[in-house]
């Protein structure tokens, strides 16, 4: 039997007396893609941080290529042949792509001068090898988020590491770019490298991984070959209880139209978008990144200026020129970027929940602490937000619970129409299900939902109707009965 690239046994780690990891086990074989699965708080990030040398373990063994390894800093792990593509990007915006890739290890010529020609050439070769269509000379600040992610990937691969950790590498990528990444992963695998792949997107795991390891509550649960496990079984292991149905869909659309949009333009490239939304319906906007999905939401919510088009809500013409107007008209907008525009990470759970409805919680400009506290309590209960107190900083919550805080904030405004932009991004399977349940119940209770999702499964599972967008225009509409992944992709690309 070949020697494993990485073998971890009995790894433990506590933070301030709380065990984050109590039995971490993992075996990575050469030439394999190994999915590390688990919900938020399962111990995945702690495990990765120890393997990368960011945190020190309390106990346990880590063997890299048969040798016991102790990493006291990230560069130790890098030297040992472990590199990582991180979820959070860390570009130096004013530097070129090549400079970013070779940051801190620039090729040096005579007199200690940086050899820019070699650096640009090497970087371009690396990008071309990966089929990433990015110029090594362009500045990081001129790239899109997806391109930044690709550069990050190229950088991680440039270390020629034997073990590559990928933490949610596709979270900012469109389908086509994700496919490029998957092709690159296949080539790495063929070269005998080992890849640890972390994602909440199960379909990706089933697409590219050979093996899986599941962590739950800081413990190793099981590992095995992907071929031997079903999607349902994997979800059960991650969540720790049998799931009846992944997509809890209970709503049925009515014939009553609540919103009509005609000829809407936005953001300079979204043109002539028209659609109806019915009470009780979950409508999905599907399209690649840059197809104009989010820009439609931003226009409807008054975040982008009026560039023409009519919006009618419950039969009344509205302008929706500012977020306040949209909120008063009964719209709520869960944005794509939870940390960037959803939450105030400096504030606590209560202040975040109350943020969009301060008028109702105050009289003559004075806040009522009692009403704020009771509003927060109500939402914490309604969404099952796991927090010891509503005075805890929201930054201390898991991704799923943070998203529930955002939902709580919006439900407090008693909306009629929910705009959900990637509502389950970075959220674990258990919390995803609850978000689906909330959507369904909201629609069934007389509301209407428009959702944007890059996850085809989610769209197929939840939507009553899908409007597909391409380059800022509607390229087609698919009803629930004709819904299929092929139909969507065909219209989107």
């Amino acid at each position, binding site marked *: 039997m070949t020697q494993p690239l990485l073998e971890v046994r009995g790894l433990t780690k506590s933070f*301030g*007396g709380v065990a984050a990891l109590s039995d971490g086990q993992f075996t990575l074989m050469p030439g394999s893609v190994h999915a590390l699965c688990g919900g938020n708080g399962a111990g995945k990030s702690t495990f990765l941080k120890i393997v990368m040398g960011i945190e020190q373990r309390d106990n346990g063994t880590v063997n890299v290529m048969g040798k016991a390894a102790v990493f006291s800093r990230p560069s130790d792990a890098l030297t040992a042949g472990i590199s990582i593509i991180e979820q959070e990007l860390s570009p130096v915006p004013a530097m070129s792509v090549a400079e970013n890739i070779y940051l801190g290890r620039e090729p040096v010529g005579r007199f200690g001068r940086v050899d820019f020609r070699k650096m640009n050439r090497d970087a371009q070769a690396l990008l071309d090898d990966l089929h990433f269509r990015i110029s090594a000379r362009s500045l990081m600040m001129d790239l899109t988020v997806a391109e930044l992610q690709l550069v990050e990937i190229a950088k991680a691969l440039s270390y020629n590491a034997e073990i590559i950790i990928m933490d949610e590498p596709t979270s900012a990528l469109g389908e086509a770019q994700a496919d490029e990444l998957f092709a690159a992963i296949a080539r790495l695998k063929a070269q005998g490298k080992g890849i640890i792949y972390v994602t909440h997107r199960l379909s990706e795991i089933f697409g590219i991984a050979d093996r899986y390891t599941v962590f739950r509550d800081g413990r190793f649960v099981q590992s095995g070959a992907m071929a031997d496990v079903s999607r349902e079984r994997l979800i059960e292991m991650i969540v720790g209880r049998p799931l009846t149905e992944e997509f809890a869909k209970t709503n049925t659309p009515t014939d009553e139209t609540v919103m009509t949009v005609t000829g809407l333009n936005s953001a300079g490239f979204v043109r002539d978008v028209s659609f109806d939304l019915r009470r009780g319906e979950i409508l999905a906007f599907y399209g690649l990144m840059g197809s104009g999905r989010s820009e439609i939401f931003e226009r409807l919510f008054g975040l982008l200026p009026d560039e023409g088009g009519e919006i009618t809500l419950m039969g009344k013409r509205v302008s929706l020129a500012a977020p306040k107007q949209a909120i008063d008209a009964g719209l709520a907008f869960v944005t794509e970027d939870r940390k*960037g*525009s959803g939450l*105030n990470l400096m*504030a606590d759970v209560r202040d975040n929940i109350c*943020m969009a409805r*301060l008028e109702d919680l*105050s009289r003559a400009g*004075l806040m009522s602490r009692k009403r704020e506290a009771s509003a927060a309590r109500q939402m914490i209960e309604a969404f099952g937000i796991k927090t010891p107190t509503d005075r805890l900083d929201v930054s201390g919550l898991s991704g799923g619970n943070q998203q529930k805080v955002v939902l709580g904030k919006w439900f407090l405004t008693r909306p009629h129409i929910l705009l959900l932009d990637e509502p389950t991004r970075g959220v674990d399977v258990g919390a995803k299900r609850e978000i689906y349940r909330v959507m369904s119940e909201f629609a069934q209770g007389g509301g209407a939902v428009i959702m944007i999702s890059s996850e085809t499964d989610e769209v197929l599972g939840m939507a009553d109707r899908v409007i597909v967008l391409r380059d800022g225009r509607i390229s087609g509409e698919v009803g629930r009965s004709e819904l299929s992944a092929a139909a969507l992709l065909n219209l989107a690309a």
Partner: protein
Amino acid sequence: MNTTAADRDIKTMAVQYGQKYGILIALLLVCVALSVVNEFFLTQRNIINVLRQASINGILAIGMTFVILTRGIDLSVGSVVALAGVVSASMATTSSTAAVAGAPYAFYIAFAVGILVGMAAGWINGILVAYFNVPAFVTTLGMLSAARGLTLLYSGGRPVPSLTPEYRFIGTGDLFGVPMPIALFALVFVLAYFVLSSSRFGRHVYAAGGNPHAARVSGINVKRVRMVVYVISGALAGLAGMVLAARTGSALPQAGVAYELDAIAAVVIGGTSLSGGVGRVTGTLIGALLISVVNNGLDLMGVESYYQQVIKGMLIVAAVMLDQARHKHA
């Protein structure tokens, strides 16, 4: 690994207390130390002296707190102190050379004009920062220069002397035995505390500073909030300018130079984050008092004033280091 859970709990508690009351503890320790080494420190006269010295900086620092909470900075307050001082003083002087036509006016008119001058300067800062996206540092640096220039133009570079007794009252009078500068500082503090902790506008300030994007999506008019905080800072600079003029008996065109630095120092020492969204006006109060107590203590011990600046500098940096350390723990 040898520490027990109980040890750790005590340590955590100590850290938490240190976080919450660190600056207050520092202030108390300095006070205790000074009262031991110098018997004069705890006398009523000296305490009033310390508070009076803290009051003008304290009033400015409270305005600065609002601005810094929204991720801004107001470098112009020192110049606005001088501008509001000379303009309002010129309406309350009996000196024929420095007065505007019709002076001296009733003190409340001069007073209102001083506040309005400050608000106008703040309004211009606010419009530029909030609606024209000029960085606050640049905008208020420009106002620092422009307001000083206007002060010199308006006064011809000469002090405005011979203020009416009514006007001088806000600097030298007593309210129920409390000197007016201290009473005004206390009033401003109570109002600011109330606004930041209990008003809807206060919630808007924290949200707009904590995450302007999220605040905007949540229906908060972030631009308006950002404009208003500069108007508040300007108005308080106007008030401070008049208190200063009233105390000294004449408004000096070179008054208030570098006052913005002490105001920012008080805010930062008080634990308000320069990156916005986090901080309290009680911290600012303690920060202003700490600066004043340290200056006073060094005076009492006969330390040369040049050293005082060095020590103040170290104090500011130490306070921010403490702040960084506490963020790492949290």
